[in-house]
């Protein structure tokens, strides 16, 4: 098989509707799981945010309250496939912000835990892998944005049902 054929095969795998749908669900699940502990422990999450030392203190609590709900709602919309493109753009935006926050903490040598999935400040320390994982999830988001055309989604299911009902 020559290179062109291989590239064609790769393209057909990437552009198959199932793969972006799976990535969308996985990305949504990551966001939902990441939000649960933060919603339960907003004060601890505020400490996590403060430890990054990039936000003025007046914004920290508001961010600690809002961010986990943003994650869980975006994650749920992604899993269900509702407003997929809007959800994807928010997820990618959040991941870009998280990546910048992690990168600056690594560059400044802050010895802190990420606060990504667990709010306990004694949990595992941030490392380069934390940033790499964020970038991997960001790449999933980009693939979903490019190739997910709403297959295997709740919106599609609803449209199909509506079509059946209205069909003569």
């Amino acid at each position, binding site marked *: 098989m020559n290179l062109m054929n291989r590239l064609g095969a790769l393209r057909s795998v990437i552009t198959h509707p199932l793969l972006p749908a799976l990535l969308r669900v996985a990305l949504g699940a990551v966001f939902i799981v990441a939000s649960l502990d933060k919603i339960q422990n*907003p*004060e601890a999450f*505020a*400490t996590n945010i*403060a*430890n990054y*030392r*990039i*936000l*003025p*203190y*007046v914004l*920290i*609590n*508001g961010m*600690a*309250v*809002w961010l*986990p*709900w*943003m994650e*869980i*709602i*975006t994650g749920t*919309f992604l899993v269900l496939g509702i*407003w997929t*493109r*809007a*959800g994807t*753009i*928010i997820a990618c935006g959040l991941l870009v912000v998280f990546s910048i926050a992690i990168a600056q903490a690594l560059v*400044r040598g*802050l*010895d*802190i*835990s990420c606060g990504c999935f667990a709010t306990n*400040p004694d949990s595992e320390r941030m490392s380069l892998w934390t940033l790499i994982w964020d970038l991997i999830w960001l790449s999933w988001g980009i693939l979903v944005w490019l190739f997910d055309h709403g297959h295997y989604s709740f919106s599609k299911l609803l449209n199909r049902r509506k079509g059946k009902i209205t069909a003569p």
Partner: protein
Amino acid sequence: MDIPFFSSLDSLIRMNELKKIAAQAAALVIFSASVAFLTNAVRDDRLPLVMPFPPSFQCLSSEKPGDPVSVAQALAFFGKPGIVFVDARRAEAFQRGHIEGARHIPYSFVQPLSKETVDSLKGFETIIVYCNREEAEASKLMAGELAQAGIQGVVYLEKGFVGWVKSGGRYTGDAPEGYDE
């Protein structure tokens, strides 16, 4: 062949699609913010939306606030070799007046102390960090951060610059804000 009518129609559709996505994203942001703040308002362990300063927690880099030193002890230390006073306040406050001979190292909650700053304090036996008042947490946080960075003998001044002036400590410039003669 590119027909102008169809290409402009296509760009119009794309523009409408982008507007729709932007509107949905904005709706998601507003909806999540509403749920978040309403939920926070009704829960027992709600967070105040604006964190009071000083923060009710310590940064991880200064898990332990520094140890205190009383004004009387600080007065006894004053002028002895190996002792340095560090003013953790903002530049305007320092320029207005400060403990005589104090070094100015403003404490920023956002920016950790640089390695150069930490290294410059390593030769001293006792480092007394102060702010205007005891409740100005910057001195406690800074003392804690210096101690975490491996500096020995770092303490914060109880009652701050105001307490120092009240007790007759020597200073340069004006008396601090909050000092009532």
